[in-house]
């Protein structure tokens, strides 16, 4: 288990829990990161450039910042935000988020493919947030993505793995890390995603809106770790029927 690491682009990580940083009181971010054991934290650049209480001051050193392009409505805006983030010293990692729907905040897959291509051409390590669609995922691979981040359910809903069957197809067919993003509301759902073979889980709302934020961060850490171990060890078979103790074909051994 000790060498089981998550590799994204040229970097590798010991933790498979990506923590969101929006929706929090900033004072709690440090404790949440620590208890989550998280090595990657996302950051909305639109929130990071503020003169009062900069979120960057609350992120512990050594944690990789994954800036996102939230607020972008098309690929060109996403590219400009990513460039700005690199200029701000946030590194080359970028999570592409493009939404042109203010109600459900569902990602725009077409624009996401376009932004992924432009950003990977510019040397970014691109993690695109997407609606789980196999053809789009393949296009993202061709466009140079470093991981694929399908949504489990609409962002903020805590509804869990509503898109489970489609994410399973991505896990089976795509050679990049599949990281479930959005919709994960409980540690048990994060565990389920990891058991299926997801490479990592990202959660924000579920932790940020918990009664005890650091404790919930810890619960997610444990659930993700348990799910990963279960995946690596090979889950037992599940059958809908009982196994007959005298199988019909027993006579063949007579």
């Amino acid at each position: 288990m000790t060498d089981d690491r998550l590799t994204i682009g040229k970097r590798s990580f010991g933790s498979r829990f990506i923590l969101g940083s929006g929706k929090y009181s900033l004072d709690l971010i440090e404790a949440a990161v620590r208890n989550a054991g998280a090595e990657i934290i996302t950051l909305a650049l639109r929130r990071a450039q503020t003169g009062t209480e900069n979120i960057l001051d609350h992120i512990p050193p050594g944690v990789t910042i994954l800036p996102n392009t939230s607020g972008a409505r098309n690929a060109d805006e996403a590219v400009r935000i990513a460039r700005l983030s690199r200029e701000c010293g946030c590194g080359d990692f970028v999570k592409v988020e493009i939404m042109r729907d203010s109600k459900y905040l569902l990602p725009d897959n077409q624009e996401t493919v376009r932004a992924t291509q432009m950003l990977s051409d510019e040397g970014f390590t691109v993690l695109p947030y997407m609606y789980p669609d196999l053809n789009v995922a393949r296009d993202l691979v061709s466009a140079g993505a470093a991981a694929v981040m399908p949504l489990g359910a609409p962002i903020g809903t805590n509804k869990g793995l509503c898109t489970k069957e489609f994410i399973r197809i991505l896990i089976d067919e795509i050679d990049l890390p599949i990281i479930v993003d959005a919709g994960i509301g409980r540690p048990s759902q994060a565990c389920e995603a990891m058991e299926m073979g997801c490479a990592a889980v990202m959660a924000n709302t579920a932790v940020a809106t918990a009664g005890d934020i650091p404790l919930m961060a810890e619960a997610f850490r444990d659930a993700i770790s348990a799910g990963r171990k279960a995946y690596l060890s090979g889950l037992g078979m599940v059958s809908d029927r009982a196994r007959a103790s005298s199988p019909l074909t027993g006579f063949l051994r007579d």
Partner: protein
Amino acid sequence: MIDPMVYLDGMERTDTDLMDRVLSASSSYRPEAFTGRDVSRALDSSSPDLEDLGALLSPAAEGLIEEMAQRAMEETRKHFGNSVSMFTPLYISNYCDNRCIYCGFNRDNDIHRARLDYEEIEREMDAIAATGLEEVLILTGESRRMSDPEYIGEACRIASKRFRVVGLEVYPMNSSDYAYLHRCGADFVTVFQETYDPETYGRMHLGGCKRIMPYRFNAQERAVRGGMRGVGFGALLGLGDFRRDAFATAMHAGEIQRRYPHAEIAFSCPRLRPIVNDSSVNPGDVHETQLLQVICAYRLYAPYAGITISSRERAGFRDNVIMIAATKISAGVDVGIGGHSSSEDKGDGQFEISDGRTVPEIFEAIKSAGLQPVMSDYIYT
């Protein structure tokens, strides 16, 4: 007197039946027809429809205000987490061409009129920026003559050098004007419809361009077409039947979101204060319970929408409403002309405020509620 339903020359017409549909739905809305059971069903709905909205705004829902607040808080946290945005309004001119019988800026009112020149606007904005705020809302009285788009545009340019988000609350314009102001740095437009009842609208707005109801109604659509990122809606609750007006406001906003899914949507919830604190006096009275009911109904019907809570309301009410449903709060408010950089206003205000707390005081109030003050939620790239 001019027919309030007929466009004047030069007013851009919007080819849509939206106003007819909203007015027809709100005029057939019968708040008294709903029961507690209807309200409970609306509270259980994962995506409330117009029928549910009607129930949530009905008198029957007042008895379930605690349940409404709980559900509203749940939705607010899901969509906005702990974030509460801060901003301040800046009045740059109080000249007005309209004759609205309830408004302090009424052109017939003998008040001190003033219009800031560009240097004064710079001084005011410097003073506001020094408080740490990164979002400013530019307001004028509704006089195109005394505050034309070029003047407002220059104010937007000055603002965008000092603030990350610039909003507008000015008279309705054509989409080409909105496009110009967007190029000057503004990206959010709020227009208050005041009331959606045509008869009351005509009775309250006696003169000026504001008298033309459909031009005002379609302002948000023109603003979005002009390239604005988002638009705000609001009825002045208590001017007409507040339940019906709130119903129409929510429907109006929801329909614009459907038509322009990329546009961000927000509500403001100003009210005319009841003069006597007795609910038996006037069915149009909007007490704090009713105001909270409206705010919660907006949140449940449009959980994705921003809600701004005005400094017309007292501090205690505002501090509680940001826990439940509001996502944006003004701070360090001066509704006169020129009071941010000088101890005396050059011109009189439109109304009186109840919460005069400074930016640091509101900042601390947000934090002590366990919430996170957000100074800017957008980057121009």
